[in-house]
């Protein structure tokens, strides 16, 4: 559990980033440059080498 920060090694899209980490069916949020967004609403967004993305799991209680 917890938030992982991942450094992007080469330019790609958010979709590629998610697929590479096998996270497409895991409920998560992404944070980049201080802003949080839903990955599947930003699949085409481009990220660059050197960008640091935080992968934030959405966690249910009860």
């Amino acid at each position: 559990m917890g938030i992982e920060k991942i450094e992007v090694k080469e330019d790609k899209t958010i979709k590629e980033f998610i697929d590479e980490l096998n996270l497409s069916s895991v409920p998560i949020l992404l944070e980049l440059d201080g802003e949080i967004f839903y990955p599947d609403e930003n699949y085409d967004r481009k990220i660059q080498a050197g960008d640091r993305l935080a992968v934030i799991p959405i966690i249910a209680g009860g």
Partner: protein
Amino acid sequence: MKVRRLNKILLYDDGAARALNIEEIAEYLGKKLAKVGVEVRGNPFALYPLQDKISEYAGKIASIKIPDATKRMSSWQEPLYSEIEYEKRRILGKTTAFGVLYDGLELQRLFFELIPREERSLEFVHIFFNNRLFATWDDHDRRYHARVSLCGIPSIISTTGVVEAPAKPREYYLLKQQYEMLGKDLLELKDRFKGGFIDYEDERLMEVVKGYAMQAVFYSLVGDPFCQDKGCRLYNAHWQEELVFAQLESKYEFCQRHASFLEEMNGH
């Protein structure tokens, strides 16, 4: 634990969960996290300019109801007129009637729209208190499970979830079946188990919700809302018994680890 610096804790409440006193929760959180400001924002629907989009928004909420807890929703059903009207009345505060089951992740996604863009980061702890019942899909036993809370942006805490999600003792459900067959009112059944679980209009509901609010805060602080210690308020109770113990009866509020953590944060 890597700790995030928190900017502010923001509490939202659409007024439907009548048992809650948000000011009291704000006061409690303010004491626990002395260095972080707590702001009571009130009704999330009133803040966002929904004006002419209320019908549209209501339609979206109406369409994320879970029709069958054993089937995973892959596409959403067209809501009927009365369902949209009901959601509109809920948004406008004209009714607090609850009982409909929603998909928690989709609900959270809709609430996300109401958070100002510049505050969409974990240093702002957004907590929506409400009485909508929501569930999330569990791949292991292949069904939806009702939840008390869903940590994310915003974190949602449901008073109906407090009552319905953690399971009551097995005996209760067996007796309930009998009562239903005999046409006996369930109020009598609840009397039998008095105190053992949290019910609607339970005066202990407020206290319980404070614990879940702290879970949402820890989620923002360290990415994990829970603790393994059964006596700690951060314990993720799956049974009513566990919930009552962790939130109300345990000799300590937080375990040693989390208590020291809070002390450190408050600069002691």
